[in-house]
């Protein structure tokens, strides 16, 4: 029993990080139709900046998360305003551009921070462990779960209770008409993209506990995000959450039960979902 609970917690905490990684990418993909391959690179930028603030400068983790999110958000904003803005509805060009940014940002981080990996970090009061059913369980992981839930609720609110999502999709359909209905689209695009990048950056700091801080995170995180989006479906927060947790839990139990097949279980889940529901568990039908 305790084995089960512990592994469940493992899975959910890892899943929350996956959710954080994928949600921003999924929003931008669903709402703006942008395949942002640089999303993982934003995560990396956030992780490094967060490390600088929280570890190097010794500020609190909260400030680190904020700084990481802001840094990634600003990089994202600059990319969107400066370049992507001219490429709406041109998926091929978007793919090449954002892929270029993976190279550029990775190399810039290498330049600025050097190539050595940073120790996983978290807040002082989150180091160490709780006692759960007679076993030690890391506090930081519980914090990740809580944080993921809070952010998830926030995003869900943003998606369903504000018109933001609908406005951005409207803008993708027909920019002119949407503006003619009194909507400042440019602003809406910028805000959505900023939020998406901000989450990526903040996730980089929160996820540092599990994924570390390195200059090759860009690609790796991108892969994880794609996997979660495939399982959960494009465009919805619920999908990213479900996909993230499902992958996390399957990964945890897979590792615990069939350790030799570790890498496999994740891909297998993905393939099975694809065969049963090609558009992901909660994806919009197409």
């Amino acid at each position, binding site marked *: 029993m305790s084995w089960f609970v512990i592994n469940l917690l493992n899975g959910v905490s890892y899943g929350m990080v996956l959710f954080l990684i994928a949600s921003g990418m999924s929003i931008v993909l669903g709402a703006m139709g942008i395949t942002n391959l640089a999303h993982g690179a934003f995560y990396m930028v956030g992780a490094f900046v967060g490390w600088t603030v929280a570890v190097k400068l010794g500020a609190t983790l909260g400030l680190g998360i904020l700084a990481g999110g802001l840094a990634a958000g600003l990089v994202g904003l600059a990319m969107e305003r400066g370049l992507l803005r001219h490429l709406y509805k041109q998926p091929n060009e978007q793919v090449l551009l954002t892929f270029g940014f993976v190279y550029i940002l990775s190399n810039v981080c290498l330049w600025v921070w050097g190539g050595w990996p940073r120790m996983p970090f978290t807040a002082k009061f989150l180091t160490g462990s709780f006692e759960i059913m007679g076993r030690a369980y890391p506090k930081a992981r519980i914090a990740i779960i809580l944080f993921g839930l809070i952010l998830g609720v926030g995003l869900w609110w943003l998606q369903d209770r504000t*018109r933001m999502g*609908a*406005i951005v*999709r*409207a803008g*993708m*359909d*027909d920019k*002119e*008409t*949407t*503006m*003619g*209905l*009194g*909507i*400042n*689209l440019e602003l809406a695009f910028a805000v959505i993209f900023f939020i998406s990048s901000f989450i990526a950056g903040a996730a980089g700091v929160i996820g540092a506990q599990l994924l570390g801080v390195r200059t090759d995170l860009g690609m790796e995180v991108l892969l994880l995000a794609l996997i979660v989006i495939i399982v959960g479906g494009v465009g919805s927060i619920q999908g990213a959450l479900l996909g993230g947790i499902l992958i996390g839990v399957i990964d945890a139990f897979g590792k615990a039960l069939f350790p030799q097949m570790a890498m496999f279980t994740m891909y297998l889940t993905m393939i099975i979902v694809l065969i049963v529901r090609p558009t992901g568990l909660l994806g919009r039908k197409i």
Partner: protein
Amino acid sequence: MKLNQTKGSEKSTWASTDSSTILKLADIHTYYGESYVLHGVSMAVSEGSIVALLGRNGMGKTTSIRSIIGFTPPRAGVVWFKGKDITNLKPYRIAKMGVGLIPQGRKILPSLSVKENLTMAARRRGKAIEWTLDRVYSQFPILEKRAYLKGDLLSGGEQQMLAVGRALMTNPDLLLMDEPSEGLAPKIVRDIGTIIGQLKEQGLSILLVEQNLPLALGVSDHVFIISKGTIVYESSPDELEKNEAIKVKYLCAT
């Protein structure tokens, strides 16, 4: 309301200083890139009235609407709305000032549900009676039934109702309607006429672009005819009704 007829491309002087004028186009010239489409259009809509803009295909009706809402700002001339120069404002600013748009071809946003199409642009402007989702639904009950359907799955007529509802949700003071009867069954065309009348009663000013002459003449207070980018005629609807020569010459009506 003064009713005087202007000849040729002479500029309209109607209501030029009237404080009850909600919209005024003063000699606007609009281009699409190199092509010169509006050669000095002047007209006005006074508060609470319905003005019809008539003309044959390709004469510049839609372009006039686009010039007002800011999609293709005129290169010369001024557009006044509620006494403010809106000539070079961004479309969303103009819309926010109280201009509602029902574009030609409806322009329903296909990836939004009917409900989202309505709520997306909803805006409250502190009027006594405001348009809300419920009110739009009670005006067009079919929209409520289709609330969660994607916009582009509606039939043509349903889309037109949606476009009207969507514009109303922004609670405009002035409604720009570009050929609302296009593609509609004869009965619905009549219904649209009724709705326009109701909107007027509720105090809206309307600029109605139409090819359907009976509809336009039935609802409007004043009529302009545009030909090759200039206003060539204006009068009351009754007067136009009687003027067969003008109708044949500019409206291809028999």
